């Protein structure tokens, strides 16, 4: 009988990295305050004790610099994991990710590979204000050559991160910092989760709620409340927003005929827009209503708690949208 434990998402992420570092001597992590400090969220706590400071490499506060170094190291035989403390700092690494990492393989006619992972956080409601709270993952989805992963459970986080580390392409892996303490079952044995395979987190027949990252928990809570209104909601987590499992999303939309897409990034030109368009194109004649999108409000994330809370999708907003779509 395989052993399954309850781990937090932070523990699952840490375990994935530790196992891959044991498995492959080329894997190393670099970033700010990751060694003795174990990151500000303590996600990497203890790794330096096992792997030492060369493989859990503390860097200066130079995101562009150490991300660029990771690109070069990845091209020449290492498999770096870059730790970007807050996804908001994506702005600082964009040239290295977009113009370098994403394009090296293509520009070289397939001769150089960039097997690296950029881990970053997303998610608001931590009262961290406008520069430490954004969910900017859609930016990376826009770029050919990158893959973008958004785990929503400890199980998915571990399996997807192991796949990311073993992937020969640059992979951007976003963890919602509000989910680090979320617990869930995680098998002790080695497993990976392939990219481009959505997971039906809850089966239903009346409405499909496509949700990413922490919005999966929001969607599940809303689905639970919808039961009281005799609405059976299906919750689907794409898990990787690129590659995107379009088939599973379209099939669910055809089955339920009503769809809500929830993602914590900005909706405008964002992940919800892309998924809604995929569903509209793929299931148009089976839809009873236009696809509803719910994303972050189009404002910089405010500091004051009641203001910040108003910017993020929640159970109530999903519930109300679902009821409206179902005519209740």
């Amino acid at each position, binding site marked *: 009988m395989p052993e399954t434990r309850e781990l937090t998402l932070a523990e699952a992420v840490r375990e994935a990295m530790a196992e891959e570092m044991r498995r492959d001597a080329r894997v190393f992590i670099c970033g700010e305050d990751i060694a003795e400090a174990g990151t500000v969220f303590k996600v990497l706590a203890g790794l330096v004790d096992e792997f030492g400071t060369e493989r859990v490499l503390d860097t200066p506060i130079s995101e562009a610099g150490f991300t660029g170094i990771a690109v070069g190291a990845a091209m020449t035989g290492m498999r770096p994991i870059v730790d970007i403390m807050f996804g908001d700092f994506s702005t600082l690494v964009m040239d290295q990710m977009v113009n370098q990492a994403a394009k*090296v393989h293509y*520009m070289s006619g397939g001769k150089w590979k960039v097997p690296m992972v950029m881990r970053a956080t997303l998610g608001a409601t931590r009262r961290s204000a406008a520069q430490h709270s954004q969910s900017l993952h859609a930016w990376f989805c826009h770029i050919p050559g990158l893959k973008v992963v958004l785990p929503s459970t400890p199980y998915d986080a571990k399996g997807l991160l192991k796949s990311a580390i073993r992937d020969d392409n640059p992979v951007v892996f976003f963890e919602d910092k509000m989910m680090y303490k979320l617990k869930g079952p995680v098998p002790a044995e080695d497993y990976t989760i392939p990219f481009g395979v959505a997971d039906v987190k809850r089966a239903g027949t009346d409405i499909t709620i496509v949700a990413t990252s922490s919005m999966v928990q929001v969607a599940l809570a809303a689905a639970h409340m919808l039961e009281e209104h005799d609405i059976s909601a299906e919750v689907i987590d794409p898990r990787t927003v690129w590659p995107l499992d379009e088939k599973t999303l379209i099939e669910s939309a055809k089955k339920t005929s009503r769809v809500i897409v929830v993602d914590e990034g900005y909706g405008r030109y964002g992940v919800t827009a892309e998924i809604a368009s995929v569903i509209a194109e793929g299931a148009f004649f089976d839809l009873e209503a236009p696809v509803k999108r719910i994303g972050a409000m189009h404002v910089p994330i405010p500091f004051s708690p009641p203001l910040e809370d108003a910017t993020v999708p929640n159970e109530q907003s999903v519930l109300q949208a679902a009821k409206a779509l179902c005519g209740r």
Partner: protein
Amino acid sequence: MTTAVDRPKTQSEVEAQQWLHMYRRMVMIRLFEEQVNDLYTRALMPGLAHLYIGEEAVAVGVCEALEPNDYITSTHRGHGHCLAKGATLDKMFAELLGKEAGYCKGKGGSMHIADPDTGNLGANAIVGGSAGIATGAALSAKRLKTGQVAVCFFGDGALGQGLLYEVMNMASLWKLPVIYVCENNLYNEYTHNSETAAGDMLTRATAFGLHALSVEGQDVRAVYQTAKAVVDRTRSGAGPAFLLCNTYRFMGHHVGDINREYYRSKQEEQMWKTQRDPIKLLSDWMMSQNLADRARFDQIQSEVKSEVEKAVQFAIAAPYPAPDKVDQDVYA
């Protein structure tokens, strides 16, 4: 049939062979670039062409100090670096013309030549954009204990980019085997660097604890000898270095940059072309030392010219990639 009696080569003969080899490499770059200019102006070459003419001694002097498996990163003005590191003329021309037979199957073009076989991590069209890649390659070399060094070529324009200072700092902290080679050709595109670079260039590197030297970049012997010492030092584990090569771009920023008098004078260009041509400086010196005669240089010029012509014909005749190749190689 009689043959000359084998005897050990004298010191000066060995030296002459070495300089003649560098002469040939510089001529190869010069004639390659002249051919690029010709192709471009005859509208046979798409895109942009940034010529390396005038700076040949830097690429050749530095790359001659490297081992075949050492890494380089290059720039938008990168043809010289690629050729100096061992790229072949035919695949270079083919890539510049967007042909399948090119180094990158036509997907990279003039500004993105890359070739693992010669340690070329790629030319880069973001100014200073490869500084991280070169430093990362040095990190790999150190971790994997391969003994390789990485050379990052960039122009004085890249001194304005913050990335360079971030990675020089880390290279110094971690004693990485990387050499930052700044080709100071005086101009950031169409702007003299007196308008863009404050203070002193070398001390930007020494501030981070790098071993930093300045060299006369038109003198291939000086570049080679300095680079050799710097490379040996870095390879031995002494940490990163910064080599400032003072040079000059004989042509415009790109092939279409014809009217240049608003940013530099014809007299200035003329002075460099007539008095500071790296190819002529080397041949003049060798003749003054009786290491070779005019006929030898003429012979090399003629041999390289026919190699270049052959390579161009190959590239012109080579097929374009099939349109269905367009979405291949996006992912590994």
